[in-house]
């Protein structure tokens, strides 16, 4: 790379990094505003609703969570605490710190999202490549239709159906596999600390099958469609014709010439779908009682557990921002045509 190119690359990196910082700041601010104007008194959820309750208990709780401070003061404290990872304790589970809770939940969500994204990519890219290769054929039509059908499914509904299907012997079929449809209590059974022991690992994997399968099936259509259309784009180009004329096999054309050029839209898509996948994971975690970030967020909203809520949303947002940032970098790396503006 020339020195001018390197300089413009550095300038772009700085600009993108500044944008990332601004976006994260915006996420924190919006999140703070939304949560702190929420109606409902969290104190009422923390203490038993008893008129004879000692007011001192309420006082001490207000004191502990700094609930009577001014809005601006709370905002500044919140920003500072978010950045320094000093996330305090939960309203509901006072014995555990928010950082503990969220970092524990995050592991499970990353496991779920990672597994399902892996399967989504494999299924989606294979289906998309096949469809593009036999464009207009029977496989193309049926795979597109099936993909769109699953794509339009409410994810939580699909999760319910799978949960029901694999928890009963459908139509009296004895061989039908039974899979655990609810994860929470089984994972809790092995204690909050994960140990690398075979029975625990097997149990975790067993509990992962249904949730990750649901997410993968519900989202492979997006990958397949983009794969198909970017390959169709490439396949019409002249150099593919040249490759054919050279006598390359179809497989070699696909691997050597078509796939590498279909890659950039793929990377952009993956980054963009991170938000979608997180949204899907939220619903799936609720249905399967899977102890992840989504489950925690939803229950925190129901219980008005603000300390958890205000950090758990930031974690989700930051994950999306960073995924997009990384995707940008990868795109620059794999596609030299991208202008360094």
């Amino acid at each position, binding site marked *: 790379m020339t020195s001018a190119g390197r300089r413009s690359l550095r300038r772009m990196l700085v600009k993108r990094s500044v944008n990332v910082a601004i*976006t994260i700041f*915006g996420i924190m601010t919006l999140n703070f505003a939304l949560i702190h104007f*929420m109606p409902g008194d969290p104190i009422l959820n923390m203490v038993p609703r008893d008129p004879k309750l000692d007011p001192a208990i309420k006082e001490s709780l207000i004191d502990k969570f700094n609930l009577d401070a001014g809005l601006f003061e709370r905002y500044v404290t919140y920003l500072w605490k978010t950045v320094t990872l000093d996330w305090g304790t939960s309203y509901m589970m006072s014995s555990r710190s928010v950082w503990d809770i969220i970092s524990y939940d995050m592991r499970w969500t990353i496991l779920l999202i990672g597994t399902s994204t892996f399967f989504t990519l494999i299924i989606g890219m294979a289906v998309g490549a096949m469809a593009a290769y036999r464009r207009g054929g029977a496989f193309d039509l049926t795979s597109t239709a099936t993909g*769109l059908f699953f794509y*339009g*499914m409410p994810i939580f509904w699909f999760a319910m*159906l799978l949960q029901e299907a694999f928890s009963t012997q459908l139509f009296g079929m004895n061989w039908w596999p039974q899979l655990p449809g609810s994860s929470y209590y089984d994972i809790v059974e092995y204690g909050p600390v994960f140990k690398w022991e075979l029975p625990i690992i097997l149990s975790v994997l067993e509990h992962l099958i249904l949730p990750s399968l649901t997410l993968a099936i519900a989202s492979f259509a997006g990958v397949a469609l983009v794969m198909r259309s970017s390959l169709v784009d490439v396949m*019409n180009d002249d150099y593919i014709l040249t490759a054919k004329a050279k006598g390359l096999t179809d497989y070699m054309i696909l691997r050597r010439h078509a796939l590498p050029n279909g890659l950039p839209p793929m990377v952009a898509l993956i980054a963009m779908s991170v938000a979608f996948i997180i949204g899907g994971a939220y619903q799936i975690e609720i249905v399967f009682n899977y102890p992840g970030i989504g489950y925690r967020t939803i229950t925190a*909203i129901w219980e008005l557990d603000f300390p958890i809520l205000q950090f758990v949303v930031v974690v989700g947002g930051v994950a999306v921002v960073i995924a997009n940032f990384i995707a940008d970098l990868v795109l620059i790396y794999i596609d030299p045509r991208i202008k360094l503006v």
Partner: protein
Amino acid sequence: MMQSSNRKAKEASRIRAEVRREKLRLLIFRSKRVTRALLKNPMGLAGTIILIFFSVIAAFGPYLAPYEVDATRSGLFEPYLPSSSEHWMGTDVFGYDIFSMLLYGARTSILVGMFAAVIASVVGAAVGLYSGYAGGWKDEVLMRINDVMLSIPWLVLMILVAGLIGTISLTVIILIIGLTGWSATARLVRAQVLSLRERQYIERARAIGSGDLHIIKTHILPNSFPLVFANTILTVAISILSEATLSFLHMRPYGTVTWGTMLSYAYDNSAFQLGLHYWIVMPGLCIVFLVLGFTLLGFALDEILNPRLRKR
């Protein structure tokens, strides 16, 4: 003097009427062409058929339904009835006829999706237009806000806003979905405006002294409309799904029947364990096919209206 200015005014209004007629003729010609292309496209045809089916149900559902459904009062029948000739799909836990509820729910579900999508598209298009056209720091500020909106997963954003509002009616749910879902459209329109702005005919228009508003109205809006239109149809599909998901997470509109609320009550009352399979399977299937209809139509329209894709 008087007479001549009068004649001039008459002449001008005649020309204006002529232009209006010509524009209308062009519009009809274009929509005919798009419709023909749509019906030739297998995806477009399938989508249109599905949507016609659901529109009929939405329009006449309450008259077709064997029983009246009033969600503000408790059900008319005995709960837990199995499917029979009187109740094709049985009755639910509250004593509503499930088949009638499905017919009633079509209208509300479609209305929520369409209105929310229109709001999202109008706001998104306005933001995108302004941002792309104004450029500079205004563009920068709007796009950073847009980044924030896109980075918080939409579902979470909607849940937080719903939590902020508290009691939820059908109107509120439409507003929540519409006002949180415009970011993707804004980005799309902005990109389109940025590419349009550099075209020669816009430069020429500016050179002969056209104002910004005029350029936006006569050149940029008509040229980005097809894109926004196809995108709106796709947003309808997402909005219908969002309503169902919000309902499932207990942010449901009160006093109305939508397929989303049916699903959520069915899940909360463990319909599967009670053997009320229709209650949970049918509204879900209806949502899937309705969303599929809008998605197919949206993709087909995108293919037809988007000249970049049409060449293929």
